[in-house]
């Protein structure tokens, strides 16, 4: 029974090897905080915070680290209020409007 199962299943060691290689490549790169994906994530959040009050619950960050490429998805719920305020601030900066 055990032998039968052993031969009928694809080997799992190659999967283990591939997973470890990807993981360790990322972990070695991230020592000292120099991992690009992490850096991008932090800076993107900083930029967003510059323009609006960021409610952590309204920001979802997802990463998927791959062998050839990684993906970073930052989902931000932007309240209508913040959009309006930003528009007002931009309008105030236009010189023509200031004179009027």
């Amino acid at each position, binding site marked *: 029974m*055990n032998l039968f199962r*052993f031969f009928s*299943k694809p080997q*799992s*060691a190659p*999967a*283990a090897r591939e*997973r470890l290689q*990807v*993981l360790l490549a*990322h*972990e070695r790169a*991230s*020592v000292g905080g120099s991992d690009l994906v992490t850096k991008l*994530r932090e800076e993107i959040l900083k930029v967003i915070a510059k323009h609006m009050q960021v409610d*952590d*619950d309204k*920001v*979802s*960050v*997802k*990463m*998927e*680290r*791959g062998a050839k490429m990684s993906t970073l998805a930052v989902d931000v719920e932007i309240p209508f209020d913040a959009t309006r305020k930003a528009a007002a601030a931009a309008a105030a900066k236009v010189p023509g409007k200031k004179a009027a």
Partner: protein
Amino acid sequence: MGKVIVVTSGKGGVGKTTSSAALGAALAQGGDKVVVVDFDVGLRNLDLVMGAERRVVYDLVNVIQGEAKLTQALIRDKRVETLYLLPASQTRDKDNLTPEGVEKVINSLKKAFDWVICDSPAGIERGATLAMRHADVAIVVTNPEVSSVRDSDRIIGLLDAKTVRAESGERVEKHLLLTRYDPARASRGDMLKVDDVLEILSIPLLGIIPESMDVLRASNLGAPVTLADEGSAPARAYFDAVRRLKGDAIPVTVPGEKRGFFGKIFGRKAA
């Protein structure tokens, strides 16, 4: 309010992480909402065993230090939608785990989940004591081998002294999970007997997980063994353990024991 379980052992390498993942997945496969929390700061591995290692963004330390919200740090399993993981930090010092921070996180998790499973690091230091601190139930993972049994005894002592329940005069429900049980070695008489371990530690038995290739295969693939191969012997043992955890009085079968022993098995008190 959900139940908090600590999976602990004292000794390393006995199967705490494997068991945390398998028990968590088995509970979630039954429809319960489960979060498995990795307390092994600096040497996290639960993410790898559960196959979520590429998706870790924030971790337990980030949440405790206020750098991320709990909801942001939780990773949902891709296979079972009621199963979540809260990873440990890989780069931070374990001193970042504060008792107040851990209490806050556990309390929030208890409100949102049916089961909060705390995967303890080996040893009896800060990480291990904080992992057990808020437990309602403790699963002591033990191998049928002298040093593991000794360390389990030490951990049982800590559970009776250093947990919130113990300090307030209540009891932490303790269960023994015997892992890496090798029927071949047992039949040669070269392994501690189940009854011997039970007698020495004198806590009820939750289950016996046989030593198996299936466990190694599952970790290679990044899937809890109950998901990787539901029909395998270790998976079935974990499913049974989960049923006992939920109160079903099903008899424990010793892997490799013949049916003639059934009466004896039936006589053994299940957890």
